[in-house]
Structure formats: structure tokens, C-alpha cells
């Protein structure tokens, strides 16, 4: 399931629901990205998506990861709009028989979401607002997955 939301969400409630009624899942990995205050350097974050387009782009990546890592299930919830420090921005959970697949799929999905997913991000800080582009580290992280599996 992939969902964009304007409202604050509780990652724990999502994890509870995601883990429920699983008798053949051994491993659930999750990642929650939170908005950092950066000691006052960033006050709020503003995220814009292109509804329809953004979910499709994420779904393409997520379905490829599902196949690659033989996932049983995944869930991706991404906040849009104005986000205050301490609030969750993104939640990703993956379910698999064994933990390596769950971890690697979750890690890969986050790398794609952070560097390549169609969001536009503005940081509102004490010196005004600025648009953010992916960091060099984010790009390098995402490129780790571009080689074929096992290479």
C-alpha cells in the first residue's frame, strides 16, 4: 500500500496494523524518517507531490523491490504539506520470510524515496525558505542498487 497524506501520522499505529495476522512472516523491517529541527536551522519542512504521478512512480519502484527481494508485503506512507520538527515524514515497512530480505528491501526503498521520488522539498528556516535537492550521499546511496542483484 502506498499513501500520501497531508495529516500527521503515527508510525507505530501503522506498524501494529502491518504486523497483524501474519503467521508466515518471520521478518518486518521498518523505517521512519522524522523532521529534524537541526538546532533551529530548519523550522519546518514543506513537501509537495504531484498526486497520481508521485504514487505511480513510487509503486513502480516498490513493485520492483517486491519482486527482487521476494517480499510478502510492503507499506509506504509519505507526508506532504507543512511538517514540523519531530513529525514523521515517511514510513516504510517490508515483510518477508527472513530478515535479510526485509532489511535490504526497506533500505533500498528508502534510498529511492530520499533521492529519486517525485517530491519537491522546501526548508523554512530562520533565514527564509530554500528548495532542497538530493545530497551527493543520497544519490550515491540510491546508486548502490542500480547494479544487478549479486553483482
Amino acid at each position, binding site marked *: 500500500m502506498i499513501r500520501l497524506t497531508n495529516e500527521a501520522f503515527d508510525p507505530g499505529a501503522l506498524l501494529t496494523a502491518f504486523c497483524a495476522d501474519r503467521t508466515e512472516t518471520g521478518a518486518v523491517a521498518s523505517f521512519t*524518517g522524522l523532521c529534524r529541527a537541526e538546532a533551529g536551522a530548519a523550522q519546518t519542512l514543506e*513537501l*509537495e507531490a*504531484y498526486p*497520481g*504521478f508521485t504514487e*505511480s512512480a513510487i509503486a513502480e519502484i516498490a513493485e520492483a523491490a517486491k519482486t527482487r527481494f521476494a517480499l510478502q508485503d510492503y507499506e509506504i506512507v*509519505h507526508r506532504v504539506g507543512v511538517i514540523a520538527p519531530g513529525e514523521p*515524514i*515517511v514510513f516504510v515497512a517490508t515483510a518477508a520470510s527472513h530478515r535479510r530480505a526485509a532489511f535490504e528491501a526497506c533500505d533500498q526503498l528508502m534510498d529511492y*524515496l*530520499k*533521492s*529519486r*521520488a*517525485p*517530491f*519537491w*522539498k*522546501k526548508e523554512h528556516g530562520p533565514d527564509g525558505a530554500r*528548495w*532542497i*535537492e*538530493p545530497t551527493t550521499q*543520497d544519490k550515491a546511496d540510491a546508486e548502490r542498487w542500480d547494479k544487478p542483484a549479486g553483482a
Partner: protein
Amino acid sequence: MCQVLLFGRLADVAGWRERRLDPAPATLFGLRDLLSAEDAQLGEALAAPGVQAALEKAIVRGDRPLPHGCEVAFLPPMSGG
């Protein structure tokens, strides 16, 4: 007729996010030329490296005819989430 959407800093530069053009230019390049002629700053921003166009929510490269009632979006480099 077509619906034009701007995202990220393109919307900030233009001062609008969504606009209905009726009549609309026949092609994507025609639309970009029209927007650039009206607003040189937006024209410059649209020509910046990494700006992409989407027609009916799918990225297109190069020129395309614009069907009646279509949605065109101009997307600056994506920030990631």
C-alpha cells in the same frame, strides 16, 4: 484547452501553480514558448537543467502534440522525500 501545472520552485517563480489555457497551443514546445514569452523569468526557469515535462502524468522527452483537455506538468529536479 489544457491544464498546466507547475511544481516546486517553478511555481514560486511564476507565482501560480495551476492554470487553464483555452485555447491551448497545439504542441508541448508551443506551450513552453508561450509561457516563456509571457514571463521571461519562468522561461528561464523552464529552460534550466533537469526540468522535465509530464503529459497526462507521464514524463515525456522532446515535443508532443497536446490533445484537447490534457494535463501538462513542468517538474523541476526532484528533491526526494
